[in-house]
């Protein structure tokens, strides 16, 4: 359904708003690359706009930070419906290597609902174009764009502080709070 909606609403023009909520710049410059001559996404009608009120799509880069969460949420709310959110890069998709640091909330999906994930650190320009092209129905998907839910794919996670040493054996205690 999402795909049909995308094709109907955004097929010929996709105006994107870029929100870096606290990333390192690496994804930013790759997104910038996508807009310039070698990759040139304007041929698909994709254009970067300066105001969330003009945008169809929000590109999120960087993990959700405690200091930018509020601004990110407001930017999302300012985009008129229907709207899509892309999480670009490992930090936006999963929180990155600092996902549990004191100033980081985690992946951007904790603040705004995310429709598509483009992982990579940083993702290649080709990967970004492919992700967007799949979303607007220009190419067939090779993987299903599903939202990841922790409950359906339980992965045991361990925290370094929970590794308890018992003589020569290291005991891993499964952690719920991650």
């Amino acid at each position, binding site marked *: 359904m999402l795909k049909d909606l995308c094709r109907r609403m955004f097929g010929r023009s996709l105006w994107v708003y870029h929100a870096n909520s*606290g990333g*390192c710049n690496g*994804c930013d*410059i790759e997104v910038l690359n996508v807009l310039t001559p070698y990759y040139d996404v304007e041929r698909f009608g994709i254009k970067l*706009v300066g105001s969330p009120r003009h945008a169809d799509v929000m590109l999120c880069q960087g993990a959700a*930070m405690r*200091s930018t969460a509020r*601004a990110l949420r407001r930017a999302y709310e300012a985009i008129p419906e229907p709207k899509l959110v892309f999480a670009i890069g490992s930090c936006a998709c999963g929180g990155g290597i600092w996902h549990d640091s004191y100033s980081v909330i985690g992946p951007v999906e904790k603040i705004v609902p995310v429709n598509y994930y483009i992982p990579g650190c940083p993702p290649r320009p080709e990967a970004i174009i492919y992700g967007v092209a799949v979303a607007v129905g220009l190419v067939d998907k090779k993987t299903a764009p599903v939202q990841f839910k922790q409950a359906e794919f339980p992965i045991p996670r361990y925290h370094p502080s929970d590794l308890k040493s018992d003589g020569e054996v290291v005991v891993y205690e499964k952690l719920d709070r991650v």
Partner: protein
Amino acid sequence: MSIAMAERAKLEALRARFGAAIRRADLPGNGRMFVTVDPAAIREICRHVFREMGARYVISIGADDRPFSGEFLVAHNFAFDGDGVLCGLLAHLPGDRPALDSISDVVPAANWAEREFRDLVGIEPMGHRYPKRLVLPDGWPEGVHPLRKDVSWDDVPKDFDEDLEFKFDEAPDGCVVVPFGPFHPTLDEPAHFRLYVEGEMVRGCEYRGFMAHRGIEKLAESVLSYNDIPMMAERICGICGCVHSVAYVQAVEDAAGVRVPERAEYIRTIMLEMERLHSHLLWVGLACHIVGFDTLFMQSFRIREPIMWMAERMTGNRKTYALCLVGGVRWDIAPETGAALRGVLDTLEKEWRGVVDAVTGDRNIQARTRGVGVAGPDLVKDVGLVGPVARASGVAIDCRRDHPYAAYGRVAFEVITERGGDVWSRIVVRMKEVFESIGIIRQCLDKMSPGPIQARVDDELPVGRMGLSSVEAPRGEAHHFLVTGEGNRPRRWRVRAPTYQNLQGVPAMIRDQQLADMTIALGSIDPCFSCTDRMETVDVRSGLRRTWTQEDLVRLLKKGGA
């Protein structure tokens, strides 16, 4: 005068002036000085070093050393660029009363660094004129200092108030506040400026940044190990990442006395210069975009792309090269890769001449940038501006020459300076530096000989040693301070990115300028907020949404600043 003699002379001068206040001095003889001083005299000593001995202020570091010595530690780092000496002035503070005299009235450049250690470590800079919160999020409660050793890296205080708004200062009389950010449309990172505007003129501003503060230093001190950290260090910044990973491993090597094979040093140098190339090309493109010259923006990105491909061929990734480990590098450069690199450089040199001619021959760009965002030599000294910003003001500082590291001591290059101090001079400096970088890479390829690329580091690294490292990033000097520690990880690691100092100069650069020139003046320091860091867009009083985006400002200036 050799470096060791210069160090000794500096120490003798300090001893002669301050006598017993100089408690201890370590001179490892490699251009580093660690002088432990009496905390009561720190302000006077810093003033003397900064004003009379002509040192350049680098950074101040606060550290919680209580688990090891029961004390807090503050280091004020200075650089004697002419002599190639980096000097740390250390003060030990009692564990129950961490406070010392602020030096920011005699060394204005220390303003942010002191506010940062007040936030993160809880050391009070007594007499600081503006001790406002700098780094921590708005809702973070007072009195919780995440870089203290008794606070875990994932501790978020229970009384963290998500809805608390940052208290901005009142605007001066007759001025209107124009909020700028935190999300800019032209691919910048989050940072918020509140500009005080009178008519069209900017009279001042307040900066609320550090929104990309990710707690990197804390993670390094508590979770990762020595050889994990280079991978995180290069994610401090997506543009100058290799700079930070090299600076970090050099700080460890400096502290622990690890010697790096010569070939590894050449490879580090080549990758650092590759990074400077792609960063300067990116910046010139963005600067042209900001002043409304989009053709050159597209051109410089077209020219830049082969460098990214080359980086991928050399290291396996377009960015975040995962190059450095303590004691060497991970990727060698094969002969055929070297030949391909030469080909890329030849094309780049030819095409870049075309861009330089287009920019220098364009009257519009000059009209938009000459006399804008001026920083004079006094501002450079007081605020500690570095890199192309300082060099465009005629201050010839360049870590590659002044504090040689990696293979820079073995290659010849010129330090480019200009006299104007304005945005135009910064454009010229960066454009010329591209040619110097191409020359450095060619010399490295000529000079490097086959050999090992990784030193064996078998023994555990010694504990409690200090290391300093300065690396010339595309934006200026990146400085890392490190204390080695137990458990295969550093005890304290402090990163000072070039933008940290350069951003402090922005309020002075934009004062009494046209509002429309704000973007290019800010852009001209090549701000990199993620390096530095590690809001609010609605005018609260009127409730009116009036965000001035960069694009609005660009539109305004195209209309001639209507």
